[in-house]
């Protein structure tokens, strides 16, 4: 082939690329509905698996420097710190074999982390670079626990005053309320037949969206629901999400985001998706899930429609409204990044 022909043919090839031929494998997959639709990038993480391995990717947050922190139960590096382009900036942590919950709190201008370790049966407060500031052991003082093993904390939520709420999501499903110094003030929830009780209280967060005193939103994952409580632990109501094994609620702006570990209709078959609720707790979009519909004010059963995710475990929303999805038990896959489609 002559050089001129090569160039001609190559430019033809490039032209074909630019016009994007309508092959199925060249189309971007768009996830979600309405004004909450996203493009997915499964190769966001640039981490070298030999240097920065992960096991379960449990939770993620963004710090005020704009960095994305990932918590994994891989003790080679429990915390991986990324930039938004997926490049590794730093890592730390070897002592969190059950690293599960990761919450960021701005303590008088200094960002601190709360890690729930469900193998150590403890909640650990650290600086953003991993120096331990406080350790909360199992809440013996509630009278509900006889040994540490009964307590398997999964999540924390911190009030502006520094009060700490801990969800014992894999233990006895109580929500513990501590003051900022770690003194137990109250506990509520737990298992039982009443609406106020919980089953797999996997997440907890504070909702400031309606002004006034914030409310607590607690996951009751096996009941496919969130439950709302006052800060004092009084049950308010249940947000039923049929079919969806919701993990922790994450609020950003007017919306509540939650990874759905799996669909009730296909248990333990990698049937997860991500759900987004508006300010009125109405589902507005399911990413890789069924288009939300309501009948008599109640959502119809939700389920996975596209097999992009296996077992999504957390959603982190960055300052540019991109989402990062961490997954549990999904072949040690690094997080995916989702970019809004405008």
């Amino acid at each position, binding site marked *: 082939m002559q050089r001129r022909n090569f160039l001609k043919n190559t430019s033809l090839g490039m032209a074909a690329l630019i016009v994007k031929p309508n092959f199925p494998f060249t189309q971007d997959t768009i996830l979600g509905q309405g004004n909450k639709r996203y493009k997915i990038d499964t190769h966001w993480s640039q981490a070298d698996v030999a240097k920065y391995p992960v096991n379960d990717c449990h939770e993620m947050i963004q710090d005020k420097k704009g960095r994305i922190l990932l918590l994994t139960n891989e003790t080679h590096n429990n915390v991986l710190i990324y930039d938004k382009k997926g490049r590794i900036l730093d890592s730390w942590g070897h002592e969190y074999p059950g690293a599960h919950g990761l919450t960021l709190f701005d303590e008088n201008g200094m960002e601190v982390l709360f890690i729930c370790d469900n193998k150590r049966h403890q909640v650990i407060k650290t600086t953003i670079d991993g120096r331990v500031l406080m350790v909360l052991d199992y809440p013996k003082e509630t009278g509900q626990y006889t040994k540490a093993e009964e307590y398997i904390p999964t999540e924390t939520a911190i009030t502006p005053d520094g009060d700490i709420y801990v969800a014992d999501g894999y233990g006895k499903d109580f929500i513990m309320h501590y003051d900022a110094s770690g003194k137990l003030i109250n506990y509520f929830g737990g298992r039982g037949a009443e609406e106020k009780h919980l089953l797999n209280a996997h997440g907890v967060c504070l909702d400031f969206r309606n002004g006034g005193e914030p409310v607590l939103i607690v996951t009751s994952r096996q009941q496919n629901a969130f439950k709302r409580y006052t800060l004092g632990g009084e049950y308010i109501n249940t947000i039923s999400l049929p079919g969806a094994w919701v993990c922790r609620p994450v609020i950003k702006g007017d919306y509540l985001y939650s990874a759905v570990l799996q669909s009730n209709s296909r248990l333990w078959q990698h049937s997860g998706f991500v759900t987004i609720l508006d300010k009125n707790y109405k589902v507005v979009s399911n990413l890789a899930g069924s288009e939300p519909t309501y009948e008599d004010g109640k959502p119809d059963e939700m*389920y996975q429609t596209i097999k992009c995710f296996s077992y999504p475990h957390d959603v982190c929303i960055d300052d540019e409204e991109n989402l990062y999805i961490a997954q549990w038990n999904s072949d040690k896959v690094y997080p995916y990044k989702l970019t809004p489609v405008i």
Partner: protein
Amino acid sequence: MKKLFLPILILLIFNNCYAQQTFQLAPPMLKYHSIFFQTPAMISMQFAQPDTKIFFTLNGKEPTQNDSYYNQPLEIQKSFTTLKAKVFGDGFLPSETVAITFIKDGLKIKSVQATEPNEKYPGNGAQTLFDNEGGVANSQSKNFIGYQTDSVVINVSLEKKQKITSVLLDFLRDYGSWIFLPESVRVYYFDDKKNEFQFLAEKKIVADSSQQSSATVFEILNTNKKVLSSKIKIVLKPLSFIPAWHSAKGQHGWMFIDEIKIY
């Protein structure tokens, strides 16, 4: 043709490097009360993903886009009809196929007596086994009774003495929850003349490691004998040692059963 080769090659290389992967659609949602029916069974299907369609067959063949697509609930009248359904949509790989067999009620059963199930999984007692409710793979469902014993004996009394040709048992398979099919099933019939139970049929089952998803599975035991009886005895052996390929190898398996049919 030769001139086209290079651009096509480059196109393919670029696509493989930079294009996003193609995702597979999830299987359709099938809604039905039970796979067992007396009056015709009604099945509805759902898949709330725009620009996709559910294609299905009722003849046992793999659905293609040339088959019927779902637009209204189906009614199934014929026993042992297998519904196969699959979702297709542009830009996605088609879903896996979902296959469900619907089974009509058999000879009228008067009563069932069974070995006491595990206290955690009592179902609705022995009634569970002939209530025409079942075939939904959920270990928490009251439709199942669960055992983790060496042997389970189930005595079935028919409403009247009848010709018996086969026995159907419906089990749950859910390896993640240590729930296996029994390793053997033996069926006996009551011989009035001899005033004792006589052997009718036997089946041995090996746990298949390739079947990883949870599902209900029915086993049919046929007989060539000409048998008239009103009483059937079924002896089941839950899996005594979980095989080596499972994380719980060597442990005693669970057995969950939700329905018995006599034909």
